[in-house]
C-alpha cells in the first residue's frame, strides 16, 4: 500500500513559478502522494464525531451534510468569539511576505498556497465575505470569496499540508501563528466530517485503550517486560519495571512509540536505565500509556478528552508528580494546554528530584517535568557516571523538534545532556536550529505512506541542513526528542541523506551510562559494537 517514492532528483527540481491563474479560483487536484486518506466510519463513530461515512478526498462527492455551509459558518462565528488568536490573525496580516519562504512545505513544493500567508488567506477570504462589512460590500476587491465545496476541498488539502510547526510565527512581525489557523481550519473541517485517518484512528485508539497504537494492557506489559529482558542482556542487570503501582512517587508517561517503534525503543531503554540508576521510585500506567495526543491535530476538544487521563491516573495511583518522555507534540500539549484544560492538579506536589533535591519550580502548577530537564539536572549535579567514549561511533547533530522548541523553549537541556554523554557533536547551520528549526515534514498527523511525496518535499530543507553537517563534519547521527521525528526522519534521511541515523537523546544517555554492577559493555543499545569511529554507521 506504500506508494513508490519518486526520484529525489525529480522532487529536488522544485518549480517556484507562480501559476497564471489567481489562487482563489484554482481548484485543488488530489494527486496521489500529496494527501492523506479519509477517516473510516468506525473511528469517527468511536469518538462520536460528526458525519461518519466512508469517503475519500479523491472522490467527487464528499457526502457532506446538506447544511454543511451553515455548519462551517456557525463554527467560524463560534471560534471567532472564543479564540482571540483566530480573530486577530484574521484581521491584521499585511501580506508582507516575510513568512512565505520560511515554510518547509513551500520550500519543498513551490506551491504558493503552501506559503503561510496564503494558507491563512484560504480562511481569511471566507471570513471577509461573511464576517466583515468590507468583504460583504466589495467582495473580491476586498479579498473576499464565497464558501463553496471547492473551497472546502482546498482547505482540506492545505490544512493537511501544514505540520503546525510554528516556524512562520517566529518571523511574522505580528506573531501570526499558522498553527492556530490550521488547528481552527481542521476543527471546521471536522464539523462536517472531513478528517484524516492518521489523526482520528490513533485518537480513537487512544481514547479506548489509552494509547495511539491501540495496544491493550497485556501487550503493554509484554513490551516493557521485553525491554527489561533486553536491558539484562546488555548490562547484566535485572531491572524491575513497575506498572500501575499505587503510591509510587513519580508517574512516567511516554509516547507509545517508545515501547513499540524503532529507534524509539532505544530511547525507552535509556529512560529505564537512568531511572534505575538514579533510584527513582516510579510507575508506568497501563491506561495512561500514551503521552502523545493526536487530539491536538483534530480539535481542542479532542485534545482535552485524550489528555484527561494523565491527571486522572496520577490521582488514582497517588503519585506526587509526573515525568514525561521524549515527544514533541505531547510536550506542546503538556506545556501549553494541559494545565489549562485538565488542572488544577492540586492533588500532586511541586516536583522535586529525589536524587538531587532540585525543586522544579517551573512546573509548580502543572507538576509535570520533561525527562530532559530531569536528566540534565542529574548530569549537572554529577549524579550519573558517564563514559562518553561509548558514543564515539556516533558523530552527532541535534535536531530541535518544532514543539519543544517553539512551543516550550526547551533548547539547552538536551544540549547539556548531549555534551555530557558524547564527544563528537556539531550543530547544523544557525538558521536551521533552535527557534528557526526546520520541521521533519511529517508532524501533525501527516506521517503516512500515502502522503510520501509531500513528506519528502517538506522534509527536504531539514535534510539539506543535515547533509551539510554530514559533508563538513562527517555527522552520522541525528539526535532528537520527538517520537514523530524518530518515526519519520529515518525514511526522510534515507531518501535525501543516506547514512545518517536517528537517535533519541536518552538512547545516547543509555549508551554512555555506567551502571553500578554492570558487566563490561561491548555493544551500544542497538547491539552494535562500541568504539568504532563511525565506520559502522557511515
Amino acid at each position, binding site marked *: 500500500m506504500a506508494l513508490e517514492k519518486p526520484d529525489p532528483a525529480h522532487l529536488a527540481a522544485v518549480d517556484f513559478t507562480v501559476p497564471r491563474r489567481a489562487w482563489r479560483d484554482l481548484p485543488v487536484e488530489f494527486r496521489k502522494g500529496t494527501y492523506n486518506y479519509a477517516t473510516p466510519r468506525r473511528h469517527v463513530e468511536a469518538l462520536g464525531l460528526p458525519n461518519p461515512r466512508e469517503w475519500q478526498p479523491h472522490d467527487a462527492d464528499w457526502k457532506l451534510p446538506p447544511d454543511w455551509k451553515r455548519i462551517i459558518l456557525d463554527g467560524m462565528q463560534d471560534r471567532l468569539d472564543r479564540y482571540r488568536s483566530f480573530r*486577530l490573525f484574521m484581521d491584521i*496580516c499585511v501580506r508582507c511576505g516575510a513568512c512565505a519562504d520560511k515554510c518547509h512545505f513551500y520550500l519543498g513544493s513551490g506551491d504558493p498556497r503552501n506559503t503561510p500567508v496564503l494558507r491563512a488567506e484560504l480562511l481569511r477570504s471566507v471570513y471577509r465575505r461573511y464576517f466583515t462589512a468590507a468583504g460583504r460590500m466589495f467582495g473580491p476587491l476586498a479579498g473576499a470569496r464565497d464558501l463553496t465545496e471547492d473551497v472546502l476541498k482546498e482547505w482540506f488539502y492545505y490544512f493537511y499540508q501544514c505540520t503546525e510547526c510554528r516556524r512562520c510565527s517566529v518571523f511574522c512581525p505580528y*506573531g501570526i501563528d499558522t498553527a492556530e489557523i490550521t488547528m481552527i481550519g481542521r476543527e471546521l473541517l471536522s464539523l462536517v466530517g472531513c478528517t484524516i485517518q492518521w489523526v482520528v484512528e490513533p485518537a480513537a485508539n487512544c481514547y479506548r485503550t489509552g494509547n495511539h497504537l491501540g495496544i491493550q494492557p497485556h501487550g503493554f506489559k509484554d513490551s516493557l517486560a521485553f525491554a527489561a529482558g533486553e536491558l539484562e542482556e546488555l548490562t547484566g542487570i535485572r531491572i524491575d519495571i513497575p506498572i500501575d503501582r499505587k503510591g509510587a512517587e513519580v508517574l512516567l508517561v511516554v509516547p507509545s512509540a517508545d515501547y513499540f517503534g524503532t529507534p524509539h525503543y532505544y530511547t525507552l531503554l535509556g529512560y529505564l536505565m537512568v531511572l534505575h540508576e538514579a533510584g527513582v521510585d516510579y510507575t508506568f500506567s497501563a491506561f495512561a500509556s500514551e503521552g502523545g495526543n493526536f487530539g491536538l491535530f483534530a480539535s481542542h476538544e479532542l485534545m482535552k478528552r485524550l489528555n484527561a487521563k494523565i491527571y486522572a491516573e496520577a490521582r488514582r495511583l497517588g503519585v506526587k508528580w509526573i515525568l514525561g518522555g521524549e515527544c514533541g507534540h505531547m510536550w506542546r500539549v503538556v506545556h501549553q494546554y494541559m494545565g489549562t484544560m485538565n488542572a488544577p492538579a492540586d492533588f500532586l506536589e511541586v516536583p522535586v528530584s529525589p536524587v538531587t533535591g532540585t525543586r522544579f519550580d517551573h512546573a509548580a502548577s502543572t507538576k509535570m517535568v520533561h525527562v530532559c530537564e530531569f536528566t540534565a539536572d542529574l548530569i549537572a549535579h554529577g549524579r550519573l557516571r558517564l563514559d562518553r567514549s561509548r558514543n564515539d561511533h556516533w558523530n552527532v547533530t541535534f535536531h530541535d523538534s518544532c514543539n519543544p522548541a517553539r512551543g*516550550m523553549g526547551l533548547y539547552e537541556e538536551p544540549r547539556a545532556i548531549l555534551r555530557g554523554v558524547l564527544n563528537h557533536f556539531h550543530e547544523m547551520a544557525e*538558521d536551521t536550529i533552535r527557534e528557526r528549526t526546520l520541521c521533519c515534514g511529517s508532524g501533525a498527523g501527516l506521517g503516512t505512506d500515502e502522503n510520501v511525496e509531500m513528506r519528502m518535499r517538506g522534509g527536504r530543507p531539514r535534510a539539506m541542513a543535515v547533509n551539510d553537517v554530514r559533508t563538513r563534519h562527517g555527522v552520522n547521527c541525528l539526535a532528537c526528542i520527538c517520537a514523530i521525528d524518530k518515526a519519520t526522519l529515518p525514511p526522510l534521511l534515507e531518501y535525501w541523506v543516506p547514512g545518517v541515523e536517528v537517535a533519541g537523546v536518552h538512547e545516547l544517555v543509555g549508551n554512555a551510562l555506567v551502571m553500578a554492577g554492570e558487566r563490561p559493555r561491548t555493544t551500544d543499545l542497538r547491539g552494535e559494537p562500541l568504539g568504532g569511529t563511525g565506520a559502522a554507521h557511515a
Partner: protein
Amino acid sequence: MPLSLALATALYAAAATFAAGIAWRVWVWARTPEPFRIPTTTGQQRSLAWIASSRVESPSTRLGVAGRLALEGLLFRSLFRNTVPGPAARGPDVCPPPVFFERKALWLGAMALHWSLLVIVLRHLRLFVDPVPGLAAGLAALDGFFEIGTPRWYATDAIVAIALVYLLVRRLRDPLLRYVTLPADYVALAALMAVTGTGIALRYGARVDLVDVRTFTLSVAALAPVPLKDTNLWLAAHVAAVACLLAMLPFTKMVHAAGLWLSPTRNQANDSRRRRHVNPWDAPVDVHGYEAWRDEFRDKLVAAGLPIDETRPRGGTGA
C-alpha cells in the same frame, strides 16, 4: 468659506471614524478570550537554575513580556530575523547545503516607513497646539539638520517617500508577493502615497501662507474652525488624503498597528507550567475513564497479572 468648512468637517468626521473604529476593533479583540497560553518561544525557557533563560524571547515575567512587545513594536524584532533561501536550494544538487541569507531590506523599509511617519505626525503637532510643543520644534530642527534646500528638506519626508516606493516596487517585482497581494494592499499603499505626496508638494512646491494654515488648523483643533483666507488646492488635497487615510485605517490591514499589542504569541508569558492559565469558556468534555477501560480489559488485566483497582477514583478530572 465653503472649502474650509468642508475640510474641517472632513477632518472631524475622519478623526471620529478613526477613534471609534480603532476603539471598536480593540474592544472586539480584547473581549475575545485567550483560552490558552500559546506564546511562540523564540528563546530558552526558564527552567533549571544553571541554564540562562531568555527573558525577552521566552519571557516568564510581565516585565519580560513588556520588553518583548517593546522590541516588537518599536524595533520590529521578528522582521529583523528575515532570511531568504539562497540559490543552492534551487540548484542542481539533489540535497545542497542549506543556505539562508539574511535579508534586512524589508526590515529597513518597514522601520524607515513607520518611524518617519511617526516623526512626521509629531512634527504636525505644531499646527494643532499653541504654543508649539518643544517636542515638535525639536524634531523639526533635528529632521531639518542637513539644511538642504529652501524650504529646508526634512529627512523624514525623503525617507518616507523612498520607503513607500520600495514597498510598492517590492510588491510588484517579486512574482510570489504579487501573487499573494490583494487589491486592498495597493489601496493602503496608495493612501499613504497620496498623503505623503500631497504633503511634500504642499511644503516644497505650493506656496501656502503658513500663518493662515496654522490659524485654520489651530481653530480646527479648538473645535471652532475659522475659514482659510487663501484656499490652496494642494492643501485641500492633502487634508482630504489625510482624512481618507484616517477613516479607512481601522477597517484595513493598517489596523495591525493596534493589533500587534494583543497578539497572543507575543504578549503572553511562557509560564504555563509555573502558573495555571484559566480558560474562561472551559467546559466539561466526554472522557473515557479508568473504570470503563478496566471493565473492558478486565480479563486481560487478570491474565497479565496487572493490578486491578476496584475503588472508584476520588472524582475530579477525567474520573
